[in-house]
């Protein structure tokens, strides 16, 4: 397909930058990439750590996670019983970020919403990627008719509009956290499946895979021991992007009214609830949830982008 210089991406960068301007140290591959012979993880970790945006992303994720899970210990609020005496209070006084239409403290609700949003995001990202990983590896490894059938199933999944699927489902059953995770997984595993399958197609022609085959290694052993570990870069990148996507999709579903019931606060739910009062000028109900959604999703995207560079993987889906 694409002609590439042997040794792939790492050599492209300096060739391109070095041609025209004085050698820019920042653009050069990190020295370690040439010298490192031992531990590839050290190279990945170093490339990753040198990416400022990625470090920012990691910082944000850590802070947001602490905020959501530890925060309620320092700022305990009642998020179960509406307090109709304190609705739509502006920030200040006892409520640092004001209250919403049910009298819930916004700051405390952001923490609660963070719990569910992060849980959904992580669960979906990890489960979907694992399923897609096995599916893609099997499809790519066996090839031929198996591959043909399995990949057509993925194509069908891609062609069914996600939002539409969710709307169907929410009519069938009342959404719960588990169900929502299952649904998001059902639409998310397609991307890793395609990516891993593509990688497996090239991995299965490698000498070490063929050697195991010649020695009589079982297919499952080859897939699990030799193919899957070699797709680790793709997997980590995909998980990160999937987390970001799941948090976003959750927010969109919440807006369309097909997400979790108000008894389970989510950032998306808070945002869509807040936007109904946009005209009234209750900005504190809109901007805090919007800000925390955007900064969390951006953070995961930064991390994913940096991992992509660090592992030097190419995701055509993005």
């Amino acid at each position, binding site marked *: 397909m694409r002609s590439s*210089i042997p040794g792939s991406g790492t050599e492209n960068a300096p*060739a391109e930058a070095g041609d025209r301007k004085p050698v*820019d140290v920042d653009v050069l591959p990190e020295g370690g990439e040439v010298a490192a012979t031992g531990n590839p993880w050290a190279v990945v970790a170093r490339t990753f750590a040198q990416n400022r945006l990625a470090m920012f992303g990691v910082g944000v994720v850590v802070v947001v996670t602490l905020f959501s899970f530890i925060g309620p210990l320092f700022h305990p609020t009642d998020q179960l019983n509406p307090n109709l005496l304190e609705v739509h209070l502006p920030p200040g006084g006892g409520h640092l970020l004001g209250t919403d239409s049910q009298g819930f403290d916004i700051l405390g609700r952001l923490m609660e919403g963070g719990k569910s949003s992060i849980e959904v995001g992580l669960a979906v990202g990890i489960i979907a990627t694992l399923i897609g990983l096995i599916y893609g590896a099997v499809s790519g490894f066996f090839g031929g008719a198996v591959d043909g059938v399995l990949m*057509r199933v993925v194509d069908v999944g891609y062609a069914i509009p996600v939002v539409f699927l969710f*709307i169907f489902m929410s009519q069938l059953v009342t959404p719960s956290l588990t169900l929502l995770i299952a649904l998001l997984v059902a639409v998310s595993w397609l991307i890793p499946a395609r990516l891993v399958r593509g990688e497996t197609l090239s991995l299965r022609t490698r000498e070490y895979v063929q050697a195991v085959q010649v020695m009589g290694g079982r297919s499952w052993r080859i897939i699990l021991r030799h193919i899957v570990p070699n797709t680790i870069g793709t997997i980590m990148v995909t998980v990160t992007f999937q987390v970001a996507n799941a948090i976003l999709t959750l927010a969109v579903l919440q807006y369309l009214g097909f997400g979790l019931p108000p008894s389970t606060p989510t950032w998306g739910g808070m*945002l869509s609830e807040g*936007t109904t009062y946009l005209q009234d000028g209750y900005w504190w109900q809109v901007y805090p949830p919007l800000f925390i959604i955007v900064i969390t999703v951006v953070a995961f995207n930064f991390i994913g982008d940096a991992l992509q560079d660090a592992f030097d993987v190419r995701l055509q889906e993005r």
Partner: protein
Amino acid sequence: MTGYIIRRLGEAIIVTLGVTMITFALLHLLPGNLAHDVLGPRASPQELAQFTQQNGLNRPIYVQYWLFLEKLLHGNLGYSYQYNRSVDSLLASELPRDLVLGGLSLIFALLIAIPVGVAQAVRRNGVLDYTSTGVSFLLYSMPQYAIALLLIQFLSISFHVLPAEAPQSSSALGMLAHPAGLVLPVASLTLVTFAQFSRYMRSSAIDTLAQDYIRTARAKGLSERLVLWRHLLRNSLVTVVTLVGLSIPLVITGTLIIEQVFNFPGAGLEYLQATLSNDYEVMLGITVLVGVVTVLGNLVADIGYAILDPRIRY
């Protein structure tokens, strides 16, 4: 090449069948009784039985699916009991309006994203690159409705520059006759699309810049401008084919949320209303249509790519 196209066509047909099958099955799992929904709570048992009989609702699901498929092949997407019109005629009035929204946004997004993406690749790690990357990441990370609502907040509520509602005209031309109302929906969708396109253009242009022919062009002393126009831009345009192909379904689906925010009378909004009133054939018709269009879009992108890029051999 012909073999490749034929194979892709075959795959597309299989996938389309799969889409209709799954959508059909899902909709049949929906709770509720069509006869009951259509005839209302006061219908007598005889009337219900007659309706069920007439519409074949008591036949096995695979027979119903077959009948549905047969109608579909004749271009009949079903019947809306809510409006007493065929889904075809509903869509015939909505799709042109969607085309205005989706088409305009697609054009604007391309017009902005191509130059920005190429410029980012050429001046990689420069100020423009960082700014555009930041902007597209930001847009990419916002729920679509939030982009739309922020535009409304600033341009409609704070400063009364533009209306927050789409024109409610019955025809596409009527929509265009009220450009002010179109600005915000089109702008929102453009921003959403731009975020994806510019990233895609950027990485494709970076790939192209690393190719041997660019180096050759420079080595033989071509001016930088010629290298950019003749070699880089022209080759990056192959990417545009992919982008357009992939965003054809966006003209219908991507607009669902934007349509909801601006009350834009299109297929997406129709779909949401259909789900609320259990207008089941409308849901089925629109979903199948979107599925088919998605498959077609991918087909167009793949074939276009194969035709335009002579290096790709299958």
